């Protein structure tokens, strides 16, 4: 029997705080019950309190941008809808706006009725996305009654979307040069009726949120993001508006129907408590506003065609298209080269802009509050990944070699000579 090795350790003297390790590192994710999508947060904790948080992205890179270069503009509209499962329509609006701006160099203009229909669908999408978030947030704080009730009311909006587009999630209603479907009188009447019910229900939920202790005690004072910090870290969307910043692309840089007379009744909603409670209130009030915009757009829907056939080739241009997704500012950068396919498409989603704010919000909170703080920006981690990172076994240093084409060929020949039985 081998003798036990005796290792001498300099044990800390009892009661000496200076010798004890002060902080501990706790990894949150990539696979974690609190997260719906893979994402890694390294939390540095001191007891129960989070001192520092480091996010790491790049787990769900799907290569959508490269795939977009191989497809035509019409096909790409169905592809970019798959970037995000919930805010799918706004991606397609962003790309179609960029394409039509490039086509505008040759004098092409989409019909006005189509722009109104696009705006209606995007506002309906905002309603269902915000109610979905509200339900998820209620579930995170352990208030499942509200989760069930709010999701039941969300079904009204989902039914409308299914009725007008033919699908519950990926609507595919946009086309370069207009929309693919028109609204009938029956559908308009149904939408007006359902919007009235949604406004009534949402006013009730706002009342509940402002008065109910279950929500107030669990959300007030946690996940604080000061306006100055939000501005410094470039927060967008409801996260920025909940910190009191008046940022909204629909108002600052209007597109589609927002550039018309809708701008006069447009109301940018802000709230000033800077915490998770503030984000709840901003989103709830935004749903009520969105319902009002849908009703206004339906009342002022112009007549005319919904589709004009565009030219097949898109002239050479660099276009930056900004839209307001339910989660914040969405950017599509299009580089066309006088063919029917884009040369380059770059997508920046709102979660990427907000991810640094989350790291800031987590500081100073308890570990138990980290789930609702994470959920408070309405994260969509799968949408944001545009890059993949390579990290070695020691998890610290990334080893990346730059190879020329000849070196790469030589390497591949050597590799295949070594692994002869390799099959795809």
């Amino acid at each position, binding site marked *: 029997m081998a003798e036990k090795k005796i290792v001498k350790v300099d044990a800390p003297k009892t009661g000496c705080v200076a010798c004890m390790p002060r902080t501990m590192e706790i990894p949150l994710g990539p696979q974690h019950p609190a997260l719906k999508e893979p994402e890694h947060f390294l939390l540095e904790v001191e007891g129960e309190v989070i001192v520092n948080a480091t996010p790491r992205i790049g787990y769900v890179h799907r290569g959508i941008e490269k795939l977009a270069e191989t*497809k035509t503009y*019409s*096909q*790409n509209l*169905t*592809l970019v809808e*798959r970037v995000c499962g919930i805010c799918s329509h706004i991606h397609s609006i962003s790309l179609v706006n960029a394409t039509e701006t490039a086509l505008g160099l040759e004098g092409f203009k989409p019909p006005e009725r189509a722009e109104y229909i696009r705006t209606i669908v995007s506002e309906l999408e905002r309603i269902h996305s915000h109610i979905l978030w509200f339900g998820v947030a209620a579930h995170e704080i352990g208030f499942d*009654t*509200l989760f069930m*009730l709010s999701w*039941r009311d969300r*079904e009204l909006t989902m*039914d409308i979307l*299914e*009725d*007008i*587009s*033919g*699908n519950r999630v*990926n609507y*595919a209603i946009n086309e370069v040069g207009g929309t*693919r*479907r028109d609204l009938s009188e029956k559908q308009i009447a149904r939408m007006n009726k359902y919007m009235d019910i949604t406004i009534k229900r949402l006013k*009730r939920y706002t*009342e*509940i949120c402002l*008065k*109910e*202790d*279950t929500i*107030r005690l669990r959300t007030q004072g946690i996940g604080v993001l000061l306006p100055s910090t939000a501005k410094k870290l470039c927060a967008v969307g409801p996260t920025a508006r909940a910190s009191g910043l008046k940022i909204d692309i629909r108002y600052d840089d209007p597109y589609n129907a927002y550039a018309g007379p809708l701008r006069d009744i447009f109301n940018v909603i802000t709230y000033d408590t800077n915490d998770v409670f503030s984000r709840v209130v901003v989103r709830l009030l935004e749903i009520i506003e969105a319902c009002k915009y849908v009703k206004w757009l339906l009342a002022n829907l112009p007549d005319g065609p919904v589709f004009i056939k565009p030219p097949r080739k898109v002239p050479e241009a660099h276009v930056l298209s900004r839209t307001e997704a339910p989660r914040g500012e969405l950017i599509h950068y299009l580089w066309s080269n006088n063919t029917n396919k884009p040369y380059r498409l770059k997508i920046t989603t709102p979660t990427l802009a907000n991810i640094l704010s989350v790291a800031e919000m987590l500081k100073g909170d308890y570990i138990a509050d980290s789930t609702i703080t994470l959920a408070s920006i309405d994260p969509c981690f799968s949408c944001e990944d545009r890059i993949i990172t390579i990290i070695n076994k020691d998890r610290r240093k990334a080893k990346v070699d730059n190879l020329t084409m000849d070196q790469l060929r030589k390497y591949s020949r050597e590799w295949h000579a070594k692994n002869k039985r390799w099959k795809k």
Partner: protein
Amino acid sequence: MPRPGVIICEALRNAFKKKKATIDYPFQEGVKPKKGLRGAHYFILEKCTGCRACERACPPMCIEMVPSEVTKTGKRPVINLGECIFCGLCEEACRYDALFLTDYIELSAFGRDEMIIYSKETKPSESKEQQEEG
């Protein structure tokens, strides 16, 4: 002034409601719109000319052209529903109304091969008989 338990009355009212918010789906029929739903394809071989417009329009490239004896150009489409995203672009591309989407949405199958529809060519006489029976 905050009040506790505002939602209790709401929850109680729902508990004694007779009308359910959900449907026992496989046993009861699901709710779907009367028209405009995008489900499985329906293909009419007699109308098809094999112009390949549907193949070119398809974003995920799930339509494959195979040799045919009936059509004008000697080609006809075969659709892989496992790869289809149900966008309906093939339906709009078809000038002869040979291919369109139906409201049939229950598409589960036991294997990937079963997801490929219209893989065998039926003669016009057989398909007419099938239509009469249906």
